[in-house]
């Protein structure tokens, strides 16, 4: 039998970003033994890239803020497609989660009276984002990393071993989830360093693997974002929802080519930066959509006054939700008013003194200086849309983060529903904290309720090992050998060009054909060398996940014949109220294939609880809901 290193834990968390670490902390504090598995080194997860802040209605900057306002903003941002229960929990619990971080040692920027300072961000009614300059994600991950260290120190005092109850498996990739009688029994993977196999025997797995950005060419995501959790869940029998909604962040770097896609924080606009086209026009005033008319300033004077007096003036349209801004930039460029390198200008230099820019946006200053030779205190930045976040993900129970597979939980970007069709900036970090904790709790309760731990079958381990080393065996007869790097590039290019920010039916069909072609060729992927730290092999394995997830995105996108949030159809440019409560569910057939076939089915969303619905004015709901859905609304009846 294959040589496999075996470990046994109560809970195994896959992914060591914000959601994963928060789940680990919670499960460990409930007394369970926990393993956390991450593809990179500990503390390098993609959460470090989050810049702007963490949304929580603490009301420090504006006392008018509360969870109801946050909830409304989130639902509006997601165009009412959100799982309302998740949005409710998120809005209610985010402040506690942020305050909790302070007890772990986090140092957020402060207000004059010593509380946590909050900043403006797109789509948020009030300044709401707890932040540390423009490196909030780093603060979150470091804080939780250090909290985990402190939990390990407690274990060291108690058991004489730092890793007695909580161990980090860094640079370790999970390739397969194992089940017994439909329940999770374990997770199989390999050490990146040695290539040796590792098996976790565990009744509960929390997926916190982040997003799918590496399926696109221009992306702000790191190499880890290969949709592992999405694919693992699909193959284990769970469903994905909302996969057609992919957020393109409006401001990524566009020049030089090697850094194309790297994020430029929304904080630049929150702190006064404005978007301009090649004619120097602040074009966003022309792109305020009907649903947001009246909530945003329609002239420059009012927009500028808003930074100082937010109560008397309406906010600048530069801070519309991300999907709106990304589309506007796309249109400007297409109509020939773009910057030299195919973006638009983001100007903070003429808006704030140089010292202030360096103080508030140190990493942006640094990033442009070092990578593009641009001094943002003197010149405008060139920016354009970049693939940033997937709203879709594993369908989970809002309260426990449990998927439809017993023992499988998911939190953070790889879970779906919370953000609807479009995520507001700042809602991601708070999502990680709120649902990371809930996933930890959910998994802990599940483990405690079990009477018998499911067993891992040896045959499953052998099969998983065989699948993992397949790329070394060379192509089967009649299949051409493929280089994983080439195939990856082709996948990225077609997703980027054909299922990107603006979508058309025929293009998506082309993408689906291309994905089918890649599916045929993927069995031919062959890698050289041996298993020890072999990036070619790692990519070959990740590629399967990217393909599976890309197919979900493309098929769901083709199916949804409307434009909403992160899904924009050139051939169906309007939002269609009939589609509002429809979720597209992606699942795979139970098969032994490396990349099983994907099926898409529509299902209705559960209607919003009455008390939550009443938080909105009828006139606003009318923009999103069908007549029938609103028939019972109290304002209607009255």
């Amino acid at each position, binding site marked *: 039998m294959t040589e496999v290193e075996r470990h046994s834990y109560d809970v195994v968390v896959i992914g060591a970003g914000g959601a994963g670490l928060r789940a680990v902390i919670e499960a460990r504090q409930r007394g369970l033994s926990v393993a956390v598995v991450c593809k990179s080194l500990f503390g390098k997860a993609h959460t470090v890239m989050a810049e702007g802040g963490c949304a929580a209605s603490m009301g420090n900057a504006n006392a008018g803020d509360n969870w109801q306002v946050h909830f409304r903003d989130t639902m509006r941002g997601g165009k009412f497609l959100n799982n309302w229960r998740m949005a409710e929990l998120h809005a209610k619990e985010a402040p506690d989660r942020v305050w909790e971080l302070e007890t772990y040692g986090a140092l957020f920027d402060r207000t004059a*009276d010593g509380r946590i300072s909050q900043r403006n961000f797109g789509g948020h009614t009030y300044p709401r984002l707890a932040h540390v300059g423009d490196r909030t994600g780093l603060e979150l991950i470091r804080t939780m990393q250090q909290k985990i260290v*402190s939990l390990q120190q407690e274990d060291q005092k108690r058991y004489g071993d730092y890793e007695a109850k909580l161990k980090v498996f860094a640079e370790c990739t999970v390739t397969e989830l194992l089940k017994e009688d439909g329940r999770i029994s374990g997770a199989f993977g390999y050490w990146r360093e040695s290539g040796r196999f590792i098996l976790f025997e565990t009744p509960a797995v929390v997926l916190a693997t982040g997003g799918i950005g590496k399926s696109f060419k221009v992306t702000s995501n790191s190499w880890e974002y290969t949709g592992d959790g999405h694919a693992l869940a699909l193959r284990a029998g769970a469903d994905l929802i909302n996969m057609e909604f992919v957020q393109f962040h409006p401001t990524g770097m566009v020049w030089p080519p090697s850094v194309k896609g790297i994020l430029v924080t929304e904080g630049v606009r929150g702190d006064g930066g404005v978007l301009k086209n090649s004619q120097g026009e602040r074009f966003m005033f022309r792109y305020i959509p009907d649903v947001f008319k009246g909530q945003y300033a329609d002239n420059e004077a009012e927009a500028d006054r808003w930074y100082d007096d937010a109560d008397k003036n309406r906010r600048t349209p530069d801070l519309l939700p991300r999907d709106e801004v990304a589309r506007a930039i796309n249109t400007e460029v297409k109509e020939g008013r773009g910057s030299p390198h195919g973006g638009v200008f983001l100007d903070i230099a003429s808006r704030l003194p140089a010292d202030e820019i360096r103080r508030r946006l140190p990493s942006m200053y640094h990033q442009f200086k070092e990578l593009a030779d641009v001094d943002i205190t003197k010149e405008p930045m060139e920016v354009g849309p970049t693939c940033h976040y997937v709203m879709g993900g594993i369908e989970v129970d809002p309260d426990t983060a449990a998927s439809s597979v017993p023992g499988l939980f998911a939190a953070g970007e790889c879970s779906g529903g919370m953000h609807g069709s479009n995520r507001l900036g700042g809602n991601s970090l708070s999502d990680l904290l709120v649902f990371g904790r809930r996933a930890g709790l959910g998994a802990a309760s599940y483990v405690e309720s079990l009477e018998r731990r499911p067993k891992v079958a040896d045959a499953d381990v052998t099969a998983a090992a065989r699948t993992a080393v397949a790329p070394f065996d060379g192509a089967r007869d009649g299949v051409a050998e493929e280089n994983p790097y080439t195939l990856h590039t082709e996948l990225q290019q077609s997703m980027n060009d054909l299922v990107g920010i603006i979508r058309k039916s025929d293009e998506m069909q082309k993408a689906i054909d291309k994905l089918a072609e890649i599916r045929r060729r993927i069995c031919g992927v062959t890698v050289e060398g041996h298993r020890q730290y072999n990036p070619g092999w790692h990519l070959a394995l990740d590629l399967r996940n990217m393909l599976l997830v890309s197919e979900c995105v493309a098929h769901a996108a083709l199916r949804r014949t409307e434009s909403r949030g992160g899904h924009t159809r050139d051939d169906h440019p309007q939002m269609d109220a009939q589609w509002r409560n429809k979720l597209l569910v992606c699942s795979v057939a139970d098969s032994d294939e490396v990349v099983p076939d994907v099926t898409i089915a529509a299902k209705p969303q559960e209607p919003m609880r009455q008390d939550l619905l009443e938080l909105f004015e009828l006139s606003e709901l009318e923009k999103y809901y069908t007549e029938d859905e609103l028939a019972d609304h109290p304002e209607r009846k009255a």
Partner: protein
Amino acid sequence: MGYQAKLRVWRGDDGSGDLQDFTVEANEGEVVLDLIHRLQATQVPDLAVRWNCKAGKCGSCSAEVNGRPRLLCMTRMSIFSEDETITVTPMRTFPVIRDLVTDVSYNYTKAREIPSFTPPEDLKPGEYRMQQVDVQRSQEFRKCIECFLCQDTCHVIRDHEENKTAFAGPRYLMRIAELEMHPLDVADRRNEAQTDHGLGYCNITKCCTEVCPENIHITDNALIPMKERVADRRYDPIVWLGNKLFRRNGG
């Protein structure tokens, strides 16, 4: 625009290895990591390199370029001349795993030895009040992306493997300083900084500050103030006497 760049990359594992020469295409605006990736995609698919965000934010792609500790993703090709041979080697202070990837577990071991943040017991979440001027010093240290370049360049362990047990390295001595300056931390780590974590080994030659990609003033703002605090605690009889007499704690 593009040209053929000369790259010399260390390849091998903990058994043996050597510098190998390659010629790779380089385009405008690229960084060394781009070339390493191109090498991977076109010539040596199993070339091991650790990387992640490619934007200087995660601190994964630490290595040495022309002998200097650097992030590969933040080293622009434009700082070299076109006919120059660029030597890329793994970090020297840590054991090598393969090619440019090193075993940095030393750092994680040291991280665990630093006593954690200790808040006042009676303070509840949401009640924390801190002034910006009081958090600013520690915030500078929290910019650290843990690339471990400071640990790599520090001669205390770079040139003396045997010091690794007694010396935590600039990154973790800075962590102690960060906690010591945290306005709500109540623990006293000054004595242990000297005895357990080896602050005395530091001879403030500032190489850590020179290589820091986040431009943290490690020596001036963390290590020297920490040495002064240790002096308060251990080497200054007047301060010691003052504390005894007036029972001051921390100011």
